[in-house]
C-alpha cells in the first residue's frame, strides 16, 4: 500500500511540484524571518562582545530613559573602583546625537550612531580605544575623533571641526588635536561617529556639572570571575544603579538593537501567513485533482481489498512526503532569504557578520508549518478518495459534483450577518467599538463570500466571458471556465484573498490622503513646515531651537511662524497615559493657522497650567471646559484647567498646552514649526532660506504644504507598499494555482482538444481558448476581491469619518485598474505553459486518448 502510493507520487511529479512550491514559499518566508532576526542578533552580539571584551562588570542606571537619570559622583566612583578584585575602571561620560559637520560643504555627517564621550586624557584602561596620532583633548575647545569620524567629516589633526552638541542645542567649533582607533586596527566598530571631549567639559555640558558619570565599566583582576566581581560591586552600589556582567550587558544591548528591525521580521511573517493560507487552497486543489484522476486506480485498490482507511492514508502519506520535502527546501531557501535581507539591511554598516544562524526552533517551526498546512489541505481530498466505490474499477461511475447548496447556505449564514455587522459598524455612531464590530463583520463577510464564490462563479464568469470570449475559441474557453464552478472558485481563492486585502488598504489610504489634501487645501494657513525627523519618542530633546524662528520671522514675506513642542514620553492627562503625547504651542496663533473650531469654552493663547483638547479625546477622558485635571509632563504633576474643547480634524487633534509648559518638558527643542506667508508670496524661495537657517539642526526638514501632506501620509504609503508586496506573493501563488488547474484540465480534456482541432480549430485558436479560461478565472477573482475590498475599505473609511479622522471616501480607481491589469497579465502568464502543451498535442493521439 505504501509502495503503491510512493510510486504514484513519482508519476505525478509535475502536479505535486506546484503544491511543493506553495509549501516552499510559506515555509521559506517563515524561516527567512526567523533566520533574519537570529542572524542580526548574532551580528550585534559579536559587536557588543567586542566592546565588552575586557569588561567584567558594567554599572549603569536602572532607568537610563528617565528624564533626569541618576548619576555617579566622584566619591561613588572611587568607592566602586576600590572594590577588591577591580583591576581597571573606565567611567562613562557620553551622549548620543553628537553630530560633526563636514569641513568642506558644511553638511552634517550621517553615520549609523553618532556618539560623544568625555575622556580623562589618559589611555583607555580597558584597551578598547587607542590613540593613533596627536593627543587626547586637554582643553574645553579640543576634541579627538576616531579615524572613521575624521574620514566622514573630512578633517585631520589640527583642523577645526563644527559639532552639534545635543544639550546645548546648537553647533560649536572645536580643534581636532588627535585621531584614535580601536584595538585591532579598526577605524570604527559598526560605522559610528565618535567625538571625544575633555572630560570636565563633557560632564558640564551633558550632565550640567563636573564630577558626574552615567556609569562605569570595570575590568577584573586575574583569578576573579565576572560573577564574583559583580556581586562585590553590587554590595557597594548607590541606589538607582544596577550591575551587569559584561556578557549580560552585551545581550541586553543587542536585544535592544534587534527591536529596531522587528518590522521587517513581521512583514516576512505576514508573507508566510498569507502564503500558507493561499497555499492551502492550491494544495487542496492539487490533491482533489489527483484523487479525481485516480478514481479508477483507487477503486481497483478497494476492489483488491484495501480498506477506506488505507486509501485515505495513501493520499495523506503522499501529502506528508510532499510537505516534508517542501519544508526542507523552504528551510534552505528561507535561510538564504534571511541572510540576504540581513545583508541588505546591514550592508552599509561597517559591522562584520557573525555567520548565518539557523536555530533548532527555526527548523522545528518550519517543518511544523509545512506539514500542518499540507495535511489540513489534503484532508478533504483524502476523505473523498476513501469514498470511491470499488465498482468504479469496472465501469465509469458518474460521481456528479456535490451540489453547491450546502456550501452556499453556510456561506450565506456567515456572509449575511457579516454584512449586517459591517453596515452597522460603518453607519452607526459608536466611536471606537465601531472598528471591532467592523472587523468581526469583515472576517465573517470575507469567509462567507469565499464559500459563496462557487455559486457566484457561473453568472460572474459568464458575464465577464461575454466581454472577452470573442470567437468560437473564446466561447469554448468561457464554457470551460464555468464548467466546474467549485474548481474555478478554489483556483481563484488566492486572488480573492490577495485582492481583498489590497483593495481595502488602498481605499482607506486613498480616502485618508484625499481627506488630508481637502482640509489642507480648504482651511490651512500654513505654507511652509519645519519638521524634526523622529528616531525615538519625541520629548523636546530632538528638533530645533525655537529661537531660530526669530530669524525665520525676519524673512520678507513671512506672516507668522509658530513653534510646536511635542512630548510623547511618559506623559499623562487625567491619570491616563496620553498615547498621542502633549503638544505645547501658542494656541491663539495655532487657531489662526489651522481649522480649530471651539465646541466648548474658548480657543486662545494659553497661560501656564491651561490646556485645550479635541472633542474626541475630551469624550474619552471625560473632560469639559472649566474642569481641572492632573497633567504629568517630564515627571512633574500639576493641575491644569481645561480652557476649551475644539473639533477634531485629521490634522489637529490631541491635548495642547501653552508655551510656558515647555519648562517641564525634558528638552527645550521645538519638534515642528509652521510658517504662514503674506498673500502672493512664493513659497519656494522662503523654503530655501529657512533650510539655510535650519542647517545647524541636523535631522530637521523643511518643506512646503505638499510635502507636509506627503509626510503625513508617508507611513500609510509604506503600509500600502507592504500590502502590495503581499499581493504579489498572493499572485505568484495564484498563478501556480491556475497553472495547476489548467494543466489538469488539459489532461482531462485531451480528447476534446483533439476533437476541436480535428474539426478545424487552429493552434492559435487553442491557445486563445486556454488563455481565455485562465484570464477569466483571474479576473473573476479580482472582480470579487475588488468588490469586497473596496466595500470594506469604504466601510472602514465611513467609520473613520464618524470619528473625524477622515472626511471623504475616495476610491483609488487608478490603483484598482493597475491591480486588474497586473492580474490579467498574471492570468495570461499562467496560461502560457498549459496553452503550449495543448497546442502541441498530436491531434490523432489526443482524440484516441483514453
Amino acid at each position: 500500500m505504501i509502495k503503491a502510493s510512493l510510486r504514484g507520487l513519482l508519476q505525478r511529479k509535475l502536479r505535486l511540484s506546484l503544491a511543493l512550491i506553495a509549501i516552499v514559499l510559506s515555509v521559506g518566508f517563515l524561516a527567512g524571518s526567523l533566520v533574519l532576526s537570529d542572524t542580526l542578533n548574532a551580528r550585534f552580539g559579536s559587536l557588543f562582545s567586542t566592546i565588552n571584551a575586557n569588561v567584567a562588570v558594567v554599572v549603569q542606571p536602572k532607568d537610563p530613559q528617565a528624564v533626569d537619570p541618576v548619576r555617579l559622583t566622584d566619591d561613588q566612583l572611587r568607592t566602586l573602583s576600590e572594590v577588591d578584585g577591580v583591576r581597571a575602571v573606565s567611567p562613562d561620560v557620553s551622549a548620543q546625537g553628537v553630530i560633526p559637520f563636514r569641513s568642506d560643504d558644511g553638511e552634517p555627517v550621517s553615520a549609523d550612531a553618532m556618539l560623544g564621550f568625555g575622556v580623562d586624557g589618559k589611555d583607555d584602561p580597558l584597551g578598547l580605544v587607542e590613540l593613533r596620532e596627536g593627543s587626547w583633548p586637554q582643553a574645553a575647545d579640543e576634541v579627538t575623533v576616531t579615524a572613521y569620524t575624521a574620514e566622514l567629516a573630512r578633517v585631520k589633526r589640527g583642523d577645526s571641526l563644527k559639532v552639534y552638541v545635543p544639550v546645548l542645542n546648537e553647533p560649536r567649533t572645536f580643534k581636532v588635536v588627535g585621531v584614535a582607533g580601536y584595538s585591532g586596527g579598526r577605524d570604527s566598530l559598526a560605522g559610528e561617529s565618535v567625538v571625544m571631549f575633555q572630560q570636565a567639559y563633557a560632564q558640564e555640558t551633558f550632565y550640567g556639572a563636573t564630577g558626574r558619570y552615567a556609569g562605569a565599566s570595570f575590568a577584573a583582576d586575574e583569578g576573579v570571575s565576572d560573577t564574583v566581581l559583580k556581586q562585590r560591586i553590587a554590595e557597594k552600589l548607590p541606589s538607582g544603579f544596577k550591575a551587569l556582567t559584561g556578557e549580560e550587558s552585551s545581550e541586553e544591548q543587542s536585544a535592544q538593537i534587534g527591536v529596531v528591525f522587528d518590522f521587517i521580521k513581521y512583514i516576512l511573517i505576514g508573507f508566510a501567513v498569507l502564503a500558507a493560507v493561499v497555499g492551502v487552497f492550491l494544495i487542496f486543489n492539487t490533491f482533489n485533482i489527483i484523487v479525481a484522476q485516480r478514481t479508477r486506480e483507487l477503486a481497483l485498490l478497494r476492489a483488491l481489498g484495501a480498506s477506506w482507511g488505507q486509501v485515505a492514508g495513501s493520499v495523506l502519506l503522499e501529502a506528508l512526503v510532499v510537505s516534508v520535502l517542501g519544508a526542507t527546501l523552504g528551510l534552505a531557501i528561507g535561510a538564504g532569504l534571511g541572510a540576504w535581507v540581513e545583508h541588505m539591511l546591514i550592508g552599509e554598516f561597517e559591522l562584520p557578520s557573525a555567520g548565518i544562524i539557523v536555530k533548532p526552533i527555526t527548523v522545528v517551526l518550519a517543518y511544523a508549518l509545512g506539514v500542518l498546512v499540507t495535511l489540513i489541505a489534503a484532508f478533504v481530498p483524502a476523505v473523498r478518495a476513501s469514498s470511491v466505490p470499488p465498482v468504479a474499477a469496472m465501469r465509469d461511475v458518474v460521481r456528479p459534483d456535490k451540489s453547491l447548496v450546502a456550501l452556499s447556505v453556510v456561506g450565506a449564514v456567515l456572509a449575511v450577518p457579516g454584512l449586517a455587522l459591517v453596515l452597522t459598524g460603518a453607519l452607526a455612531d459608536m466611536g471606537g467599538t465601531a472598528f471591532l464590530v467592523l472587523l468581526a463583520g469583515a472576517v465573517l463577510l470575507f469567509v462567507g463570500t469565499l464559500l459563496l464564490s462557487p455559486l457566484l462563479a457561473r453568472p460572474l464568469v459568464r458575464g465577464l466571458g461575454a466581454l472577452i470570449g470573442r470567437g468560437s475559441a473564446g466561447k469554448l474557453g468561457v464554457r470551460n471556465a464555468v464548467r466546474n464552478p467549485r474548481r474555478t472558485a478554489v483556483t481563484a481563492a488566492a486572488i480573492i484573498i490577495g485582492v481583498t486585502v489590497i483593495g481595502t488598504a488602498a481605499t482607506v489610504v486613498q480616502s485618508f490622503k484625499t481627506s488630508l489634501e481637502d482640509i489642507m487645501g480648504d482651511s490651512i494657513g500654513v505654507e511652509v513646515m519645519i519638521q524634526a525627523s523622529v528616531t525615538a519618542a519625541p520629548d523636546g530633546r530632538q528638533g530645533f531651537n525655537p529661537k531660530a524662528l526669530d530669524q525665520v520671522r525676519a524673512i520678507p514675506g513671512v506672516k507668522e511662524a509658530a513653534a510646536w513642542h511635542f512630548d510623547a514620553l511618559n506623559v499623562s492627562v487625567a491619570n491616563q497615559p496620553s498615547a498621542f503625547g502633549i503638544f505645547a504651542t501658542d494656541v491663539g496663533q495655532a487657531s489662526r493657522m489651522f481649522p480649530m473650531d471651539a465646541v466648548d469654552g474658548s480657543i486662545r493663547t494659553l497661560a501656564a497650567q491651561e490646556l485645550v483638547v479635541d472633542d474626541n479625546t475630551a469624550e474619552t477622558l471625560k473632560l469639559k471646559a472649566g474642569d481641572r485635571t492632573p497633567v504629568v509632563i517630564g515627571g512633574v504633576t500639576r493641575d491644569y484647567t481645561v480652557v476649551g474643547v475644539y473639533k477634531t480634524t485629521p490634522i489637529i487633534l490631541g491635548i495642547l498646552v501653552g508655551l510656558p509648559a515647555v519648562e517641564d518638558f525634558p528638552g527645550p527643542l521645538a519638534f515642528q514649526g509652521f510658517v504662514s506667508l503674506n498673500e502672493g508670496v512664493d513659497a519656494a524661495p522662503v523654503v530655501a532660506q529657512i533650510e539655510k537657517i535650519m542647517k545647524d539642526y541636523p535631522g530637521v526638514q523643511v518643506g512646503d504644504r505638499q510635502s507636509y501632506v506627503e509626510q503625513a501620509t508617508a507611513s500609510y504609503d509604506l503600509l500600502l507598499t507592504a500590502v502590495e508586496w503581499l499581493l504579489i506573493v498572493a499572485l505568484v501563488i495564484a498563478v501556480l494555482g491556475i497553472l495547476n488547474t489548467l494543466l489538469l484540465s488539459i489532461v482531462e480534456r485531451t480528447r476534446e482538444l483533439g476533437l476541436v482541432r480535428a474539426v478545424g480549430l487552429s493552434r492559435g485558436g487553442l491557445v486563445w481558448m486556454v488563455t481565455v479560461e485562465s484570464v477569466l478565472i483571474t479576473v473573476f477573482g479580482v472582480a470579487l476581491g475588488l468588490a469586497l475590498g473596496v466595500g470594506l475599505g469604504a466601510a472602514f473609511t465611513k467609520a473613520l469619518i464618524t470619528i473625524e479622522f477622515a472626511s471623504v471616501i475616495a476610491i483609488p480607481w487608478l490603483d484598482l485598474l493597475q491591480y486588474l491589469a497586473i492580474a490579467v497579465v498574471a492570468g495570461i502568464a499562467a496560461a502560457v505553459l498549459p496553452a503550449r502543451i495543448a497546442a502541441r498535442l498530436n491531434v490523432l493521439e489526443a482524440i484516441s486518448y483514453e
Partner: protein
Amino acid sequence: MTSQVSDAPAAGAGAAARAADLWKVYGSGEAQVIALRGVNVELERGRFTAIMGPSGSGKSTLMHCLAGLDTATRGQISVGDTALTGLDDGGLTRLRREKVGFIFQQFNLLPTLTAEENILLPLAIAGRKPDPEWYRTVITTVGLADRLTHRPSQLSGGQQQRVACARALVSRPEVIFADEPTGNLDSRSGAEILNFLRRSVTEHGQTIVMVTHDANAASHADRVIFLADGQIVDELTAPTADAVLDRIKRLDAAPVAGAAE
C-alpha cells in the same frame, strides 16, 4: 473555398481523395513497424467506401493519413485538389475546416455544448454561417429536431453518434471519414447510423470513407477495400454481407507472410 465546397458533392466527378505509393513507418531499428507499404488508392466522389482488414492491417492508419490527422512517411496524398504532402499545421487546420468531416467511434462531443452547438461547432470555428435549408435537412434526416437543446450527457449513445454525424455533414465537406462509427453502438442504433450514412451518399452525393471490421456495416458501402499487412489485397464492388464475410475468411485462411501483429 466556399464554391469548391458546394461543388464537391457532385457524384462521380473524379477522386475525392487519393493516395499514391503511401508508406507509413513507425519507430526505427528493431522496434520498426511498417503500417502501410506503398498503398495506391483512389476514392471516388459521391460514393461510400468501406476499408476493412484484420487488426493491425493498417486500415486506421490509411484513413488517418488520408484525413491529414497523421503524416505519411513517403508518398503522395491529396484531398480534392489539395496535396497534403508538406502542408504545415496551419494548412492541415484549413484542410480540416474546409474539406474534411469526421465521425469517431467514441462520438467525441463536447460536454459543455448542447447538441445543436456541437453540430454547428465546425462552422463556428471556421467563422461560417450554416446554410439554413441544408441545416434543416440534416437535422430532419438524423431525427434530432427535438433533442437540439440537450447536452451529450442527456443523450443515448445512438443519439450522440447521430449528433456527430450531423456535425460532420453540416459543413458539406469533400470527404467524411468515419472510424468504426458503429463500434460502440448496439445493433439497432448501429443500423440507424449506417442507413443514415447511406442516404446522405445516395440522396445528397456526400463522399464517405468508413473504416470497419463489421461485414454487415461494410455491406452498406458501394465499394469495400481489403487491407492486410499494410497493402491493399482485395476489393469488392456493391458488396453484400455474405460476400464480404467470404472474402474475410479467404484472407484469414491465406495470411500474407510477415503480417504485422
